[in-house]
């Protein structure tokens, strides 16, 4: 649990996003401090996923700036960010526990963290099953259990609640709450209310994008 240095904030200034020649949003500015939760809302196509990918460094920044306030000289976005997109990055032929163990090893987390991370989403008893037989929601939970495994200050979540049942949504809420409490920040795109206190909302529908 030592990979992450505390991040004192993320500042986004006049960020623009152009995809396929079309302006998705422009002049987006906001600041996220430790302990902040920012909820991205807006109709389909307003650019929530695009913004998250830009923040993660997975999409070209057309114009504007993204700054990590507390980051060291040689620290890149990738050292600070944990990204969970639409896809779960789960390999069907590997067992549930093997899937997570791999990410532990690859992100330099001790193997002893795997069990607790699975438990965070009540997947412990499914550990020996091949991931291919999981139901949609179980697979999603396996993807999300990386949040409990890898320690990064800034979480970028793209519709994390998709396919989850009520119990799992509550588990995700707990995990997010404790992440915020320990000084982490979260930016999450979602169409449903996660019921987290003090959530700030960024509505992308009004941000100058072509009205798609």
């Amino acid at each position, binding site marked *: 649990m030592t990979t992450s240095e505390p991040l004192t904030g993320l500042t986004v200034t006049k960020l623009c996003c152009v995809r396929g020649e079309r302006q998705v949003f422009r002049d987006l500015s906001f600041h996220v401090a430790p302990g902040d939760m920012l909820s991205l809302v807006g109709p389909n196509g307003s650019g929530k996923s695009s913004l998250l990918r830009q923040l*993660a460094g997975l999409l070209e920044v057309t114009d504007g700036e993204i700054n990590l306030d507390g980051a060291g000289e040689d620290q890149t976005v990738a050292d600070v960010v944990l990204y969970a997109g639409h896809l779960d990055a789960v390999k069907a*032929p590997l067992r549930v526990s093997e899937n997570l163990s*791999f990410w532990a090893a*690859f992100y330099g987390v001790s193997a002893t963290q795997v069990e607790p991370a699975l438990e965070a989403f009540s997947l412990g008893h499914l550990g020996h099953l091949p991931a291919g037989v999981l139901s949609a929601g179980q697979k999603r939970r396996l993807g999300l259990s990386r949040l409990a495994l890898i320690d990064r200050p800034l979480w970028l979540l793209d519709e994390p609640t998709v396919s989850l049942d009520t119990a799992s949504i509550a588990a995700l809420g707990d995990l997010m709450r404790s992440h915020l409490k320990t000084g982490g920040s979260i930016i999450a795109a979602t169409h449903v209310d996660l019921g987290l206190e003090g959530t700030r909302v960024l509505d992308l529908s009004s941000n100058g994008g072509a009205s798609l």
Partner: protein
Amino acid sequence: MNAFFALVQREVRLATRVGGGGGMAVFFFLIVLSIVPFGIGPDLNLLTRIAPGMLWVALLLSALLTLDRLFQADQEDGTLDLLVLAPQPLELTVLAKAVSHWLTTGLPLVIAAPILGLMLNLPLDGMLPLMGAMLIGSPALSLLGAVGAALSVGVRRGGLLISLLVLPFYVPVLIFGVSASRAALVAVPGDLGGQSLALLGAVSLASLVVGPVGGAAALRVAVK
């Protein structure tokens, strides 16, 4: 380094669990080689004469057939994003991918080569040098192939595209590989085997740099 081995282990495990690992590659190799006589006729002399070439062409093809899923599968299920975002340098990730590809295709073929040689009536005492040449040359196929696979990430029908991108780069491997093997097998007077072998090694070493660096650069572009 831990991350490197974790990736290699995962890839090999995936390959064995779903594709029978190296067995499948050997099997394919065998079938291609036994298909050729149907094409060009059962003349054993002719077959022996073109045997080293056929071995290498079959090696190329079985590498090609397995390359297209190298990064594509990871992109389709979201794994690639996470690989790119991980603390491990992307070059090492590409290297790990290439190494696992070699472990599940190149290496088994090298080991199976003598059986195939027997079917093509190659002399027994040339087998070891042949295997040596294949051992030295085959890593280049996986390493260079990784660049092609990275370049065609996100392109449907990537399989054909990779072939087009990669085959030209395979030509030197093919030329030196075949001439080294032929020297070993047919004992060409004024033997050039050693020189070809050295050149083959040079190509492999060069691709040890080109592969990871080029592959990582291509991947960085492809994810965005």
